[in-house]
Every structure is written in C-alpha cells, then in structure tokens.
C-alpha cells in the first residue's frame, strides 16, 4: 500500500472513529444488520438497552437480542419489524414495548432498508426510549381523567391534609382546591355521625384497608347531602401510607328515590295485603256457602228420609182409621137383635130356621175377623215402631253431624262414619233398590279430622253414586255401591265404587270445576268435596273407565298430614 493510500485510509479511519464516538454519546440506540438480520454494528446505548457487552451483541440475531411487544403481547419472529424490513425491503416506523430480562422500555422504532454496493442488504434501526414521555403522557391522561371524572375525588397526605381535588369535588361540595388545600376534610362534617363512626373510618384506613360507606356531609353553602364514599390508602415504596384517595358520589337523589320507592313499596304491599284479605274473605265466604249448602243437603237428606219413614206411618194411620171394627160391631149387633127377637123360640130358630143357623156362622166369621184384625193392628204397630225408630236414628245422626262454621277436629272411626252415612242415605238407597256392599278394613286407625265436613263429603259422594246409578238403566241386581276402607302406604281412606253411568275419561277434569255440579244436585259438588278433602290434608281421586262403566272415588288422608291413633 502506498503511503498516500495509507494516509487516505487513516483519514477515513479517523472519520469513522469520530462517528463511532459520536454515535456512542447520543441517547438513541443505533444498530444495523446484514441481510440475515445479524448485528453488524451497534452503539453503546443499544448495548445498554439490551443489557449485553458490545462484543456479545456483534454477529448475533437482532430479532433475538431485541424482543418486542405490542399491546402487551410478544411479537412473533416473523412479525418483528426487523424481519419485516428485510423481507419486505421497506422502511418501518412504530412504537413497541421492549421487554428484555428485567428491563422494560417503550421504544420509538425507526427502521430503514439499505442496499449498499459491496456490503449487501441491511436493516438500519434507530431506537428511541420514550418510556418517560409515555409515562408522562399516561400521567397527564390519568390526571385529565381524574380531573374530569364524574365522581368527586380528593387526594390527601397521610395526615389527611388535602393536596388535590378535582372539578367534581368542587361541584359537589362547593369547595375549590384553594379553599381546601392543606386543610382536612373534616370541614365537610355535618354533625350527623357520632365519634365512633369517624373512629371506625380512621381505624380502617390507617390499617391500610379501604373504607367504604355512606356519609351525610355539609356543603360550603351549609346544605346537607348524602355521599357514597370510598377512601383508599396509597402506600409508598416502603409499605407506609403516603396518601389517601377519597372518591365521593352524591347519592342524595338516589336516597330520595329509594325512600320514594320504599313508600310505593309499602303502599303496594298494603294494597296487596288488603286484596289478599278480600280474597281470603271471599274464599271463606265460598267455603261457608259450600258448608251451608252441605248442611242444607244433609238436612234435605234427613227430611227426605224422615218423609220416607212418615209415608208408611200415614198409610198405617189411615188404615187404622178404617171402619172395619164398626162393620163387625154392626154385624154383631144384628146377630144380637136376631137372637133377641127369637128369645122364646131360640131353640127352634137356630136349629130349624135357615137364618137362625146362619147367625152362628156369622158369629164364627166375626171371631175370625176379630183375630185377623188384632194381628193386623199388631203388625201395623210394629211397623210404626220401626219407622219411628228410623226417624229417631236419622234425627240423632243429623244432630251428631250438625255442622257449625268452626272447624273442629276430633278422632273419628272412618268405618263408623261410613255406616252412619249409609244409614242417612238408606231411604234413597232402598227407593232405588241399590245394594250396598261393604269391604271395611279392620282395625282401622282413627283419624283426627273435622267429622262434620268429612260426613258432608261422604254423604255427598254416596248421593252422587245413587244419582249416577239412577241415570244408568240397569237390572236391580246390577245396582251396586261398594264401600271400602283401607290403610296402606301410610295412608288411611275410603273408596266408593258405583255401577252408575260413569264419566268419559276426557271429561273427568271438568267435573271438578266450580259450578259443574250435575243437574238436580244441590250445588255441593265434587269441587267442594275435593276442596274439603284437601283442606283436611287429604287427596280425592275420581276414576271412571268411561260412559256406562261405573266410577270410583278414592279419598285418602296422609298419616303425616293428620293425627291418627
């Protein structure tokens, strides 16, 4: 190499040396790579940024040495701007977060694609650390947000002296920052809270915990307001409380609305309670009417039965009023007159004359008639006695099951009750020539129940069965009501099965509807039977295979629902 060329080389080296020194003193990191993305050169700020000695960065992959994040997510290698520059032969400018080891920085990235004759392709990158600017920007943004926040915010030192308040604080309380700076927020005290309230507040925040609560405070204009307040202690690097941040929200309006709502709610509840009472009264009235209907039906059945019993009595009485004895007396008198008129020739009259002989025959017939009459009278008295006994029995049962509106529970024997019900209905059953079959479980535990209501139910069900049988034309031997009692699966109950007209299964539900009593019934229908049974903690199930196939009603009381022995 000639001396001249050596001098030129030295000049160039001197220039390069100065550039190297200059590039090492600026704050921006500069790095360039070859076409493979391997670092050809970097300055000291780059070494400082990535935290490696200079010599260890040279020849290494820039993508590996400079891991970048965008929106908190690490960029994949193919998305790294250095690769994008080299692959797309373009320039890229942007902002990225550098997260390498313990260091984090927010970088402004300026990347240029270079193609130099002799040195090939290259990515030249200038990185500016704008973390502080970013933080400052963030702080400015947060500060602006705090200042414009709808909630009133006050920041105090650890002694509670105000160092900053936002616009909303001034709007809420009437106090500006100048008014409250370095003062304590107890200027807002309303006197509505006792000392223990504030003691609890301070104990909480001095323990490093957040205090939340409603406070009644006083504005600068002396008016009172209610605020929802959150006070948060802020810790310094040593874990000591450095500041408190109080966030306040005026909830006076909300409180007012809540109070109004409470008034509405109370009023509504009152209205609901009134309506409920009215409904309950209506329900009670319905029940009472049903009971009255049940009672009248019982009474009607009783009267009907008594009527049935009285009819033969009337007949007997009429018969007893007959002139039979008088006729016999008249005939006897005639015999007496005849015999008396022939007192002188009585022997000849009765032995020779035809008429005389007939007198004795008459007298013999009269004796027979008297005997027969006596027997008839005796039979009639017997029948009268039976009828009177029946009337007496019905009256006793009527009296026994005379219902009041009060529900009185007592222990009853279901078998006895069914027998009583059959007795009460005996007239109707006999009139329709209905056979009663009994299948009573013995012994049957006693049920604690309102016997009057239960009797109304049983009588009504038997009456329904009678009517169902009457509606169904069938031979006398097929007219049957079977009465069963049972105790099984912790249930006690009875079943009334009839050979009556039955019900179409599709219509079974409708017969339980209010007002669906059959034509001719007294209105105390299945609806009330079901209602009464359910009121007595029981269940009533109606079943029919269809029209002309009879029906059954099963009534069961849960052992656990009522008391029994």
């Amino acid at each position, binding site marked *: *190499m000639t001396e001249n060329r*050596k001098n030129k*080389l*030295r000049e*160039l*080296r*001197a*220039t*390069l*040396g*100065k*550039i*190297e*020194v200059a590039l*090492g003193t600026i704050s921006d990191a500069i790095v*360039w790579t*070859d076409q*493979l993305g*391997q670092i*050809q*050169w970097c300055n000291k700020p780059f070494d400082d940024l990535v935290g490696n000695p*200079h*010599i260890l960065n*040279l*020849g290494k992959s820039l993508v590996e040495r400079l891991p970048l994040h965008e929106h908190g997510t690490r960029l994949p290698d193919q998305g790294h701007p250095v690769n994008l520059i080299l692959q797309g032969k373009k320039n890229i400018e942007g902002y990225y977060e550098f997260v390498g080891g313990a260091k984090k920085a927010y970088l402004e990235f300026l990347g240029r694609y270079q193609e130099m004759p002799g*040195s*090939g392709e290259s990515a030249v990158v200038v990185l500016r650390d704008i973390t502080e600017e970013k933080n400052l920007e963030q702080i400015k943004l947060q500060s602006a947000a705090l200042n414009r926040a709808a909630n009133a915010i006050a920041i105090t030192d650890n002694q509670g002296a105000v160092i900053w308040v936002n616009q909303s604080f001034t709007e809420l309380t009437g106090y500006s920052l100048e008014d409250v700076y370095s003062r304590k927020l107890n200027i807002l005290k309303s006197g509505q809270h006792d000392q223990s309230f504030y003691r609890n507040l301070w104990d909480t925040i001095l323990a490093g915990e957040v205090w939340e609560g409603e406070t009644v405070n006083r504005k600068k204009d002396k008016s009172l307001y209610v605020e929802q307040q959150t006070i948060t202690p802020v810790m310094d690097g040593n874990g000591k409380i450095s500041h408190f941040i109080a966030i306040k929200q005026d909830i006076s309006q909300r409180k007012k609305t809540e109070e109004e709502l409470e008034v509405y709610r109370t009023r509504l509840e009152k209205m609901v309670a009134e309506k409920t009472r009215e409904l309950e009264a209506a329900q009670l009235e319905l029940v009472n009417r049903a009971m009255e209907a049940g009672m009248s039906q019982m009474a009607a059945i009783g009267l009907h039965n008594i009527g049935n019993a009285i009819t033969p009595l009337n007949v007997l009485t009429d018969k007893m009023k007959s002139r039979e004895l008088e006729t016999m007396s008249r005939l006897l008198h005639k015999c007496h007159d005849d015999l008396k008129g022939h007192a002188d020739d009585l022997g000849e009259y009765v032995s020779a004359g035809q008429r005389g002989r007939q007198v004795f025959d008459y007298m013999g017939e009269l004796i027979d008639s008297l005997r027969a009459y006596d027997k008839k009278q005796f039979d009639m008295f017997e029948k009268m006695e039976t009828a009177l006994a029946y009337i007496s029995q019905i009256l006793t049962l009527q009296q026994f099951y005379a219902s009041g509106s009060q529900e009185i529970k007592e222990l009853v024997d279901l078998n006895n009750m069914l027998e009583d019900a059959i007795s009460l209905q005996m007239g109707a059953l006999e009139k329709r020539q209905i056979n009663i079959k009994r299948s009573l479980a013995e012994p049957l535990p006693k049920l604690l129940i309102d016997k009057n209501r239960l009797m109304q139910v049983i009588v009504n069900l038997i009456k329904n069965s009678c009517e169902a049988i009457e509606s169904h034309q069938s031979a006398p031997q097929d007219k049957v009501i079977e009465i069963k009692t049972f105790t099984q699966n912790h249930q006690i109950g009875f079943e009334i099965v009839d050979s009556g007209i039955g019900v179409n299964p599709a219509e079974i539900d409708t017969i339980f509807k209010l007002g669906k009593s059959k034509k001719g019934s007294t209105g105390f229908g299945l609806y009330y039977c079901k209602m009464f049974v359910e009121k007595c903690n029981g269940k009533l199930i109606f079943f029919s295979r269809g029209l002309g196939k009879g029906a059954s009603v099963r009534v069961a009381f849960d052992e656990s629902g009522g008391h029994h022995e």
Partner: protein
Amino acid sequence: MLTIDALKAETAIPAIIVDRDGTIVHINEVFEETWGWRKDQLVGESLTTIIPDNLRDAHHMGFSRFAVTGKPTILNQALELIILKADGQKTPAEHYIVAEEIDGNWVFGATIKPLDDSGADS
C-alpha cells in the same frame, strides 16, 4: 502481560501482529498450521482478510475509534470471536488481543487459539 515481542517469539500458540493501519505484519507457523493461511497470503493484507463479512463493520468502527480515542474496549481479555479460515470456513476461536505503542505508533497483536471442539486444521 502479553507483549508484541513475546508474540513475535511465540511458537506454540497461533499469533498474529498488525500495524496501526490494520495491515498484517506477522503470523507464526502455528497460525499457518492452525488456520490454513500462508504468510504470503496474509502479510501485507488487511486484517479484515481473516474477519467474516458480517463482523467487518464492527471491526472498522472499533479499530477507528481506538485510533481516535486510544481507549480500548476489547483488549487484554480472552474473547470468543469468529475467524475466517483460508478454506472459507468460519469458526469460533479464542482471541486475546493486545496493543502496544512502539515509536509513537500503535501496534496490535493477538493469539488466536482454536476452541477445544473447533474445526482447526491441526
């Protein structure tokens, strides 16, 4: 302390000496044997002859800065750097670089030893 004179006398470890302009002025026989270069291929040539392409910028910049500032950054320490062998292969090697001012001019010298598992010729 490794000196330029010591490097000139070195016979066991590959050694190289470069003048202030970056021109190679000496290699020993071990260097020739180890890295495949002959003296006539290197002496009088730029040091970049044995530096891979992608590290030449760094060499020029660092060499120039030292020329301007006289402040070393990589001297007097063992460094693992890539060397370009005569056959064109690139291989890591332990470099120990020194600089010495002789008669007012900087002279640079280095031992360049193969790593235990490097692909040295010997």
